């Protein structure tokens, strides 16, 4: 049990660092991948624990919030939501192929991005609509593509919740 928890902490830490470092160079135009959603959904599908993906999403979102303390807690709640949704639908997702899972990640990333844009405000309705149409939509597609590759590499989940 301890090695699993330790591994989870190490992976979460690595993802948090990557999310605040490699995302910049990965940016293509307005599109930025959302590694929090990818991590939360991947953990949600591949882990036996129901709570770990939720806590992971919360932790990763919290680290992201530290770059904008005025909304400290918002990203954490959205990250926890991503973990919660992925755990809630994981039985169905695990039986589907990587493309369906990637679409799920993409839609989730888009929804969370829209909530984030609306919550933080970017200077009026027109500006918010533009951000949603440009960065949120392209970012969601980009996130989906990255998660598709990741799901192809990881293969089908092997943990016991499927056969329970």
């Amino acid at each position, binding site marked *: 049990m301890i090695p699993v928890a330790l591994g989870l902490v190490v992976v979460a830490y690595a993802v948090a660092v990557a999310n605040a470092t490699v995302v910049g160079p990965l940016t293509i135009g307005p599109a930025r991948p959302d590694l929090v959603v990818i991590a939360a959904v991947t953990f949600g599908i591949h882990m036996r624990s129901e709570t770990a993906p939720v806590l992971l999403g919360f932790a990763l979102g919290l680290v992201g919030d530290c770059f904008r*303390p005025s909304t400290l807690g918002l990203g954490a709640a959205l990250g926890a939501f991503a973990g919660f949704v992925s755990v809630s639908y994981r039985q169905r997702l695990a039986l589907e192929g990587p493309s369906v899972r990637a679409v799920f990640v993409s839609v989730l990333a888009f929804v969370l991005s829209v909530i984030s844009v609306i919550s933080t405000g970017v200077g009026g309705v027109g500006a918010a609509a533009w951000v949603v149409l440009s960065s949120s939509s392209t970012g969601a597609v980009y996130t989906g593509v990255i998660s598709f590759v990741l799901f192809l590499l990881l293969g089908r989940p092997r943990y016991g919740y499927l056969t329970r």
Partner: protein
Amino acid sequence: MSILARLVRVPRVVAFVSCVVASAFLLVLPGSARRAVADVVLSAGFRPAQGFVLSLGSLRSLSEENSRLRRALVTLALENAALREREMEAERLRALLGFASERPAEVVAAEVVGMQPGPRLHTILISAGRSRGVARGLAVITPEGLVGRVLDVYEHASVVQLLADPSCRASAVVRRSRALGIVRSIPSRGLVLDNVPFTEDVRRGDTVLTAGLGGVFPKGVLIGTVSEVRADPSAMFLDVRLSPAVGAGRLEEVFVLKRRPSEPHGSAGASADTLVSEEQR
């Protein structure tokens, strides 16, 4: 059994509700407490790892950059010598005219150790904080041009608000025609130079510098070049779009300009360089 009692038995629901409660608690914290939490999270072992990962990415280009910098050093040394001569001449003339002397601001070099995750890049984390004399509101630049200003300061790190943030504004001047305006970022249009009367002479390719009118940014720092100018006869102002001099997504090292001790904090014309603070939102 009630629905609530059933939900309480589902671990993921309990975890999610706990996270939401914790998030709500964080959101209602006062600004200073939120910054303290952010300081703890970023400083407690996270920042060094970020710096290490980012430095790994730059190792490959180190040799190439080294030779480029050596060449630039020679050029700059020659240019510096010429400029010193001109500076002395200017100082003599300023003294004759009775103008106050202009001294260069002190700078603090810092590495970019993190970038704001999420769909939009509006802030970065740098490796210099209160311990090195960095304070809120100081201008941040690179040799290429203006980056933004310090938004939040922690003991050994600071959050920098980029010019790409829509709430960031800087007074600016077109180098060739001296036309004044306000530079800001609009999500649908990118970086623009606002409030330039249509009678002003602004052309594609013109260089835009900080005007130094607001007390936040020093005068003469490169902001970008004019990429497009539209003159609508029915409008009072020109529609001027800019290409930023600094690509924020690939920043590695920046310089914080420390305010001169003799300079009053937030001098006259503070409305020109407006960077909405987090508390004001």
